[in-house]
């Protein structure tokens, strides 16, 4: 079976947040899902009061 759309969507997100960025409103749901299984990690800027996200080491393996 070829790579399904859902995996492609995950990989697009993992690539976008590879180096760490503020979370875009549209990405909140998928970032939460990917974080919940350890493919990403979330953080917070206490100065700017913004939620951030970064692809985890395992997530990077998927987009290598």
């Amino acid at each position: 079976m070829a790579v399904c759309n859902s995996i492609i969507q995950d990989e697009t997100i993992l690539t976008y947040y590879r180096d760490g960025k503020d979370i875009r409103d549209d990405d909140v749901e998928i970032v939460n899902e990917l974080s919940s299984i350890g493919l990403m990690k979330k953080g917070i800027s206490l100065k700017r009061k913004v939620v951030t996200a970064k692809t985890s080491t395992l997530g990077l393996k998927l987009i290598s």
Partner: protein
Amino acid sequence: MQRDIICYGWIPNLTGDIFLMDPFKNKKKFFSIDQYSNRIPVTFLSEFGSSENVKVRPKIFSDNKDDIKNENELIVYILDKEDTKKLVKWYVFINSGDVGEAYKLVAYIDIIEFDEKGLIKFVAHEPENDNSTITNEFLNQIYIDIRDIYHEHTHHDGDSDGDAADSLIPLSIDSKDEAAAIKGILVKFQTKIVTYHKRIKQYINVIDKSKYITVAVEKIRQASGEYLYAQNFVAFYGDRGNINITVYQQLFSNVIQSMSVFLEELNAKYSHETSVITKRQNKLLLVMTIALVALTLATIILGYFTYIKPN
């Protein structure tokens, strides 16, 4: 108006005693307050008192690389005077932006209960005139920081920065009581069953891509580990949460079993893929041997006509 938010969290553990070892003895991770006294506001220094039960750790909560240059935090841990393995207060200060200026307090928490099996109840406080700091995500980050101090990540790897993976957050925010919080934490474990199954199945179904096999194996290991923790949580706190312990133990046991099935499927598929690759290689080897034989024959024939046949 100042807001106080009550949270319950569970430090995942298999031993049933998270205070078996003293996590604050790690000198590479925790520093003396004396080393940071020029950055902490004076009023807090006198409040913190003796340096024996105060530890400090610098940390950056943000993952945005642009924040790393101009944003960093100091966490101050106040430990129980009688039992210095036990955390009783947690403060976070942030740099004001001006060189040489003291940091300012962002928020602090009081730990109300912290039992040896890992359940922690804390109240998070915001400084006066600021009711926008303590968001759910910030509470998650506070919990993760405390979890990482006590929990050794034996079932999943840390990320490249050395922080724990963000996947295991059994935290219940603003629950009305302990029983509701225990149920809330169980729901968090249950919700992930679907996410893990969906992703692992997709990865197993992708053929000829070793990276998906690697990630699937890692996810199976991680999920199985988390559900072992879930079983322990049920055993430790099922009574206090008024839940049917047998039902939940069975539920998580079934999930662990289904992870084993995934692993078997993966092994079968991997063996099949390996045998397909071996067959392909054998076929290629056969073709190359035939070609080599043909080439040798052609060389012999050509040699015959070139050097022997001229007459």
